[in-house]
């Protein structure tokens, strides 16, 4: 009995010196795994007030969004209109911008068209890498 006691004298308690380390480890773990809900969406920069830029019709791709969910696309200098679905805008933009790198997307949305249609078109344009986008209300 006495011999046994002598042997286990060293490992009498749980070592408390590493408790702080364990606490920090847990802390860092939860810090890393916690995700705050961040704001996200499609970025655009509005033109400054009273900023009007004249652009040659040749460099504009008119994209008119109608309330029925269809998109009418017309190249600035031509009269031909092409009616497509919002999903096709991405592909069309890629083709058009390859021919004319200075192209500007003139997105005009009908007042009665749903917001998500405009978002779909804007999404397609941004996926295709378009940077010069103008958002307007379709009048007339």
């Amino acid at each position, binding site marked *: 009995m006495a011999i046994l006691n002598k042997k286990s004298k060293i490992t009498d308690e749980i070592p408390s010196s590493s408790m702080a380390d364990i606490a920090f480890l847990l802390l860092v773990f939860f810090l890393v795994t916690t995700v705050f809900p961040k704001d996200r969406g499609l970025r655009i920069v*509005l033109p*400054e007030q009273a900023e009007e830029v004249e652009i040659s019709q040749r460099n504009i791709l008119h994209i008119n969004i109608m309330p029925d969910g269809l998109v009418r696309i017309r190249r600035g200098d031509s009269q031909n209109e092409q009616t497509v679905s919002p999903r096709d805008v991405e592909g069309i933009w890629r083709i058009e911008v390859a021919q004319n790198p200075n192209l500007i997307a003139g997105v005009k949305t009908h*007042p009665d068209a749903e*917001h*998500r249609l405009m*978002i779909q078109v804007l999404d397609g344009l941004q*996926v295709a890498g378009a940077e010069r986008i103008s958002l307007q209300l379709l009048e007339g």
Partner: protein
Amino acid sequence: MSISNSGFQRKSKASDQIPSSSMADIAFLLLIFFMITTVFREEQERPIEWPEAQATQQIDEKRQNVLYVWVERTGQVWMNDQQIPMEMVSNLVAPAWIESGRRLVISLRADARAPYRYIDAVQNEIRDGGAVYVVFATDLERRMTRERR
């Protein structure tokens, strides 16, 4: 020199180092202090249907520089937990734009089925208020849901 030095060392042997055993306690104290003093700005969310987009990206702007504008399906505009008339949006945007040092980002949280006339009106109001950075708040669209529809 060596004699006096050795004399000093012998005297101050006990208080040689800064005690490091309480460092963790100090760190925790600071941690708790900052946890308590940090206030997250919370705003009630309006019930809207989020539009979806693949190109959805995170906004890397400080939370205090982000202003939320909610547009409901009926065209009601909500800011700072209260409904406001459309013409008032610019009056609220302008001071926030100045206060943020011309960095204000407007998160436009519009219902997916809101008619675009309201979105356009809000954009004009934001422009009138002087702000230029707008984010159309969207949910990330996944390829699978897109193909299923």
